[in-house]
């Protein structure tokens, strides 16, 4: 009998549990020599809803140049399930002085939570006509692919970073291009460039 009561209370608690969502998307972020620049950011309200950040063009000479930047994040907190999803897109992209170029960069994330389960993923993310160090990449880029950029540093393409504990919270950040600028002599990091970033998370 006691077990049944406990089970009922647990199920009831699950039905009315508080959930929260986060979401963010942006086109570019540049941090060079301590100076940061960022294109418009879409940040999801904590109660859910929708946010957008857009720009016709954005550039930091020598670091990044892009057009048609479009960032969107949406989400909702419900009694039985919650979700957040973010997209970031840019066109005519050139990164690190042309070491990386693409016709289109697309980052997509989605995170969801039900009463007893949840998940997050970056499906839908990708490049159109990606070229790295002058070499065309015609296949999908696997998550967390590292490429060296001579004279610049290195980049992680389709960088995917999970968030949450996988039990009560789930989330993911996808940075389609993450360049780590390095000093040619010391190898120390001197800055970073992020292009096409989307993140989302949910928590029970």
């Amino acid at each position, binding site marked *: 009998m006691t077990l049944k009561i406990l089970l009922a209370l647990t199920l009831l608690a699950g039905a009315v549990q508080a959930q929260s969502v986060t979401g963010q998307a942006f086109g570019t972020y540049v941090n060079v020599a301590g100076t940061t620049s960022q294109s418009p950011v879409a940040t999801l309200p904590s109660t859910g809803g929708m946010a957008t950040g857009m720009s016709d063009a954005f550039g930091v000479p020598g670091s990044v140049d892009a057009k048609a930047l479009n960032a969107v994040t*949406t989400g909702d907190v*419900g009694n039985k399930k919650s979700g957040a999803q973010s997209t970031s897109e840019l066109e005519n992209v050139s990164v690190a002085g042309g070491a990386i170029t693409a016709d289109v960069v697309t980052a997509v994330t989605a995170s969801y939570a039900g009463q007893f389960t949840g998940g997050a993923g970056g499906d839908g993310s990708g490049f159109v006509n990606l070229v790295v160090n002058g070499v065309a990449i015609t296949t999908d880029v696997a998550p967390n692919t590292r490429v060296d950029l001579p004279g610049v540093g290195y980049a992680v393409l389709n960088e995917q970073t999970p968030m949450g504990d996988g039990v009560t919270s789930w989330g993911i950040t996808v940075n389609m291009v993450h360049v780590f600028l390095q000093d040619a002599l010391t190898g120390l990091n001197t800055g970073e460039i992020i292009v096409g970033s989307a993140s989302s998370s949910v928590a029970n």
Partner: protein
Amino acid sequence: MNNGRHLASTLGALAAVLVAAACQDGASPTAQSITAGVKPGPSSCVNFRLTGGGRVDKLEPATGKNPPASHDYATFGFQARPDRNCPFDNAGSGNIEWNEHLDASFIYGGGFAFHGTVTFFSTPVDGTQTNPQCGRFGGTGRLNPRSGNTLENLPFEVRHACDVAEPGVQQDHIYIVIGPFADGSFYSRHSLLTGGNIQWHRLTGNN
């Protein structure tokens, strides 16, 4: 015109379908304005809301991404719900962003970004109407083409957005129609999600 879909030549027949659909359930403000002589009664709005975002590629029921070089995909984000005050039947509110990459996606070519404002929200009137976790909404918006001039006050309709399962990839689906454009054609895309999610939520007391 891959898969014979989504592009600019569905023309007048679709317009007739859209108008008929709007009139069928009294979903649009226009439909409300033609009920002259009928004593106004309490208006009615549905009791759920929808949010979603992600990516769509191939025509439903095909799944998976198109080849990147085709530029044949779109990304989107939306929130839609019944108007809190329900001033007329199926009054709605919300927003949608739709970003199309296919060069041949409408009369000016080059893809576009569409920003829509939701004015009506209802259950679907197409083949998904028996699915309790689908919704329909629409309104007007601004289309910014990659080439050509911005188009204002373009009608749009999401004929259905369906929350089939979690996660939504290859399960949830959406069908959007934008137009008519100056030549009478429409843009449409009707696909399963290749990224992202759509969620259906029943309204409760305070939301």
